């Protein structure tokens, strides 16, 4: 049984309350919770785009596999040093924890796999990620399952995702993370008109123990998917205000979409240019830019005849 502190930390981490998790102090290093909380805190930093700070959080000489893995992920995400070396390090760690005499708890091994899987997935190494995370095996590492499922969803295999989900339902009871997984599957498949996802995020927004603009954004996105544009806008605006006016990429991107679907399309271009300039690496920006190039290419295939001008008018 984990302590309530750790539970709380995990909850914050999974529900995207990275900011509050980052601001949180660490327990006494001798405490049992020290490492786990440090792992999550560091991962929150990474997730929040603040990967550089991790090096100051985790001592470079740590012997702990999980922490090593997290710092490798941090350096991979931050892009400091060679990304390939960070991946190699994670690969090594994954191999090491398979050894018999390794001094790591199952939980730590789980983190290593989850962290490594995350990195591999980011690197586009889908198969490697799935293998590391133990897809199609009877893994009982819910974090790994969560990542596996997201990977499946990203490669358009909701059937496999659901299968994995159904399997984990048998042992993971009603874990928060499991519900989150279900919500993500719902978002992709649109099962029952996105009702699972919508109620999950609404429920978590009412969760008194944390507040996270990420949840608001997520519900906003869900509402977008449900076709409730006005409601989605209000969620997204609320999320922006919770983020102190500096919206993250996700919220901004969702706002662009929401504005684009509104009855009056004003403000879209402004939002869009802000998104494009602030987060040029956001997939929406990248894909729209790619499409723009494609457009020119495809449009060029059509021969445009001369304009019909009256000759003898």
């Amino acid at each position, binding site marked *: 049984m984990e302590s309530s502190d750790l539970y709380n930390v995990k909850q914050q981490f999974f529900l*995207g309350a990275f900011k509050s998790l980052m601001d949180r102090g660490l327990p006494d290093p001798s405490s049992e919770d020290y490492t786990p909380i440090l792992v999550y805190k560091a*991962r*929150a930093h990474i*997730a929040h785009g603040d990967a550089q700070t991790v090096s100051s959080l985790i001592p470079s000489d740590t012997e702990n596999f999980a922490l090593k893995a997290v710092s490798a992920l941090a350096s991979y995400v931050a892009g400091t040093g060679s990304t390939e070396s960070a991946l190699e390090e994670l690969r090594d760690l994954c191999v090491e924890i398979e050894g018999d005499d390794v001094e790591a708890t199952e939980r730590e091994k789980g983190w290593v796999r989850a962290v490594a899987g*995350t990195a591999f*997935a*980011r690197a586009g190494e*889908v198969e490697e990620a*799935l*293998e590391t995370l133990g*897809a*199609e095996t009877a893994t009982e590492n819910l974090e790994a399952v969560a990542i596996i499922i*997201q990977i499946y969803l*990203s*490669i*358009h*295999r*909701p*059937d*496999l995702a659901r299968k994995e989900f159904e399997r984990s339902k048998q042992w993971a009871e009603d874990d928060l993370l499991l519900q989150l997984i279900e919500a*993500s599957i719902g*978002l*992709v*498949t*649109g*099962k029952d*008109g996105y009702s699972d996802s919508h109620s999950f995020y609404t429920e978590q927004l009412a969760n008194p123990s944390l507040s996270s603009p990420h949840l608001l*954004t997520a519900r906003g*996105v869900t509402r*977008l*998917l449900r*076709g409730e544009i006005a409601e989605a806008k209000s969620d997204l605006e609320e999320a922006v205000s919770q983020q102190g006016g500096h919206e993250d990429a*996700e919220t901004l*991107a*969702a706002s*662009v*979409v929401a504005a*684009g*679907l509104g*009855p009056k399309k004003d403000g879209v271009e402004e939002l*869009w240019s802000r998104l494009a300039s602030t987060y040029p690496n956001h*997939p*929406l920006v990248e*894909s*729209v830019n790619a*499409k*723009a190039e*494609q*457009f020119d290419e*495809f*449009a060029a295939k*059509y021969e*445009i*005849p*001369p*304009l*019909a*001008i*009256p000759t003898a*008018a």
Partner: protein
Amino acid sequence: MSVMLTKFESKSNRVKGLAFHPTQPLLAASLHNGSVQLWNYRMGVLVDRFEEHEGPVRAVAIHPSRPLLATGGDDYKIKVWDLRPQSRRCLFTLHGHLDYVRTVQFHHEMPWIISCSDDQTIRIWNSTSRNSIAVLTGHSHYVMSALFHPKEDLVVSASMDQTVRVWDISGLRKSTPNTAPGTFDTFDAFSTVKYVLEGHDRGVNYAVFHPTLPLIISAADDRQIKLWRMSETKAWEVDAFRGHFNNVSSAVFHPKHELVVSCGEDKTVRVWDLAKRSAVQTFRRENDRFWVLAAHPELNLFAAGHDNGLIVFKLERERPAFALHGDTVYYVRDKYVRSYDINTGADVGLLSVRRFGSPYVPPRTLSFNPAERAVLLTISSDNGIYELTNLPKDTVGEVKDSSVDGKRGVGQSAIFVARNRFAVLNKTTQLIEVCDLTGSVVKSIKPPVQTNEIFYGGTASLILSSTSSVVLYDIQQQKTIAELNSPPVKYVMWSQDNSQVALLSKHTITIASKGFAQNTLIHETIRIKSGAWDDAGVFVYSTLNHVKYCLPQGDHGVICTLDNPVYLTRVKGKTVHCLDRSARPRTITIDPTEYRFKLALTRNNYDEVLYLIRTSNLLGQSIIAYLQQKGFPEIALHFVEDKNTRFDLAIECGNLDVALETAKAIDRPECWARLAQQALKQGNHKIVEKAYQQTKNFDRLSFLYLATGSTDKLLKMQKIAEARGDPMSRFHNALYAGDVPGRIAVLREVGLYPLAYLTAKTNGLEDLATEILEDAGLTEADVDDVPDFGRASLKPPPVVTATTNFVWPAIPGGESFFDRALANGNLEAGAEPHLNGERAAAAASSALDDWAKDEEEQDLAADEDGWDLDAGGDAHAEEESVEGEAQEEQEELGAGATPGPSETEIWTRNSPFAGDHVAAGSFDSAMQLLNRQLGIVNFAALKPLFLSVYRSSHTYLSPIASLPPLELHLRRNPAESSLSRVLPVAVVTLRQARSELAEGFRFVSGNKLSDAQTTFRSVLQSLLFVVASSNDEAKEWRDTVTTAREYLLGVSIELERRRVAQEQPDSVQRSLELAAYFTHCKLQPPHMQIALRSAIQVFTKANNTATAAKFARRLLDLNPDPKIVAQARQRIAAGDRNPRDAVEIAYDEFTEFEICAASYTPIYKGSPAVRCPYTDAAFLPEFKGSLEPLTRLTEIGAVATGLPAPR
């Protein structure tokens, strides 16, 4: 009683004892040769044999509730056997009798066995302790039978001492006596003789109690059967049945009816009326004396054993006479006509037919006339009679008897053929008489064939059943319409819609269409009992032990098994309504999925097929085999988990993706070989390559690379061959790759210097040639006798098309309805399609329509593929794999982790609208669609719209920290979760376009014409992305396009006029013309007023007062402001005063005309014009092929298909 229906016969040694199994169709027969047979009389098979007795076995019995068999033989032994199929063996033997054992019987509740013997005793045994517990002594001769009373503690015995004795054994039950051996004498105290029945003059062979009444029947060698009655205190002879002319072996009570059945050595089985003591029926056998008779405890079934075997027979037909009308079954039970409503279950007696024919015989057929509410019954007694009776309107009170007002006549077969006509067949005279309802004959027909039975054959037609054929006969024309060869047809069932008919014979079913045009024949080895049509057009029928189905084209199969035969009346959905053998309505719930599935398949009703796949658990080898056999391997593929089968199926239906996936999972050389073969057929050389790599088929691989022109890979193959140390392969590859030095190197290495030398020489590599010569230790001089071969022209063919990068030319991926519908394993429940009756046809045709639509879409998709030459990633990955040792293939993906179709792909598949394709990001296909549907060629202006539509259809969310966000897709039908129907969000809606249009109107009113022009142009651009979802919307879309076009045209004309007025002030004529044309654009009244006023103004200025006045009149028609009215009247007055025009212009207001949108000149009705494929704007023919100037999007006069139908 005119029939004794033999159900089963066997040939064997003399049968001395018989016993029915109470629940299963089993019969035990003990034979004179010492064997005991166990028959399944329904299937007609010998189930088992028990052969441990020595000498004849006379006694046999089956336990009423437990699987036990008892036999007693001339070896004095009684054996008890286990009857369970898996352990049929002798359990124990009871020793004690000192002479032949004659009969044995189990007690119905106590663990007792009673036996009697020629040792003049009756013994009762405890089968648990396996001891004799009582010996009944008193008979002074052989005891021929001894049987328990079915309920009371009595025993009846028959003996050669000419007596029948009834014993009281109640003492036996009260206290179990000492069963220790050697205490023989104490038994007698417990069982005493109650009555001694004397009356027979000879030995008595058999005596048995009546199952319910206090009656005994006995059969004796004095050729008599005697009936005895008993009371509490005494028993006496009631009467004797006389008729047998030799020893009577046995006599039994009929378990249900007041009948006695007997058999004897006079080779007869006789049936007697218990009340009248008169013979009812006699069944004679030529040579065989009957020795034993047994009655089934429950059923109308008897068995008799004779010298050469046994027979099992029924005394009457069980099949109740019935007719179905709508959801009501009219049937006969216990000589009452009843109706049974299958919806409510209401079952009421309507009419008594007790006095119709023989009281023992139930009516044979019933025909129902709904118009008159009359029934026509036939009965086989009295040589066949019929009776026509009206059913009472209400069933209050006692039901009437048909004899009151029924009309009777002679005939073996009688049916209604019309509302007021019925037909009667007289078999002996071979005459069919058609009668009116009063019974008078209106027409006589001589049937063309020997007719045994007649059936309704559709309007004014009869179906005549003869011994070898069945004839469809037209009553009116008196001629044969059609004739089918068939065994005698016994029953005929018409389908609900009377389009098909099932003709049932004993072992065959013929399903024929209405006029017997098409037909299929089904054979059954088991007797066919009855049948009924399902609402969907499937014939469901029952045999002795199965309910089966049969599809119109002849496929048939088992639905469920039956314990006892039933007579099907109606099949509704999952429920089969039937009458059981005692004519009680029953229902059987069946699973119709299998036949509905097959029916849907044969009718190409794919919606239904899909629905069934989704909702039911259709699995199993049989379905898979069926699908495969019927040519639907791609559907079967969706059912199969087993990878080997999957592979086979995938190869069969050419689904290379699945085949590849499974081949990887199986990973056996023969699979790869087959995959390679199939992929080669389809031209998918990438898969071929993979397969060859897997099997390390280097030779073929090299040749494949040659064929596809993949030179770099050939070089790699060369390296691999080098690594493998296979010079032949190296040589090949070098040859294929055109690598001359490589070739020479190989030849040198293997020591083929002459070849190496010549190769070098003929390729002009003189230095190398010299080198080789040196290696070979020769000089030029040594080879001067070698002729000069000239320059070698051997070269690999040049690569024309880089086939290596494409999978081309591939057989178009046969993506079927099912692939799409089942894509992604998405088998969520869809809406249930209608199936019943005629609706099925409509469903089928609409399914076909969908199919056709799919085809269209597929074409599109295929086109796309053609353009989208995705040569990037894949080829790359493979190169790597070749590089590393060639066998080290790409890492296997987790079993199913190949990416599925993305949502955007699904969108493009699901929609033929450009707007949806844009949202899906498939700009390429969107442009094709726009081009094809609306003739758009100039896309540049649409770029922002394309991008904003695309941008607004996708959003991103990262549920899991640090992972790349998930791309989510906005659907316009969020309630829809079936991937085959999801569509992208409507970014541009018709409403938005119309509000933009309204904005344009405001610009017009505000005289901001160039703004208006831009706005209308943009409206027309936006409208391209609107997806109409209904016909109304499609119409509204078209109206909006037309309005926008008219305004755009009008505004453009007016702008042109202003330009002309400003730049060429002299060109008054042109200016006037344009002003006039402007008034001919279809504008809304307020805007029309503006146009007219402006025209009036311009014309007045030019002194064209007459035309100005005309415009003013048109203005008045629009009911403008009073102020404007006043002005207009002024102009009219001026025009009247001065009715002439100063400037002559090209304007004929009286002839209808359109305005060329390029030259702004009129195109009068009837003159040739070309049109904009999008807006339908008209142009002079000379502008054909130019860019349309209004919208600047289309090519004038281009051919376009228009928008597809909304969906």
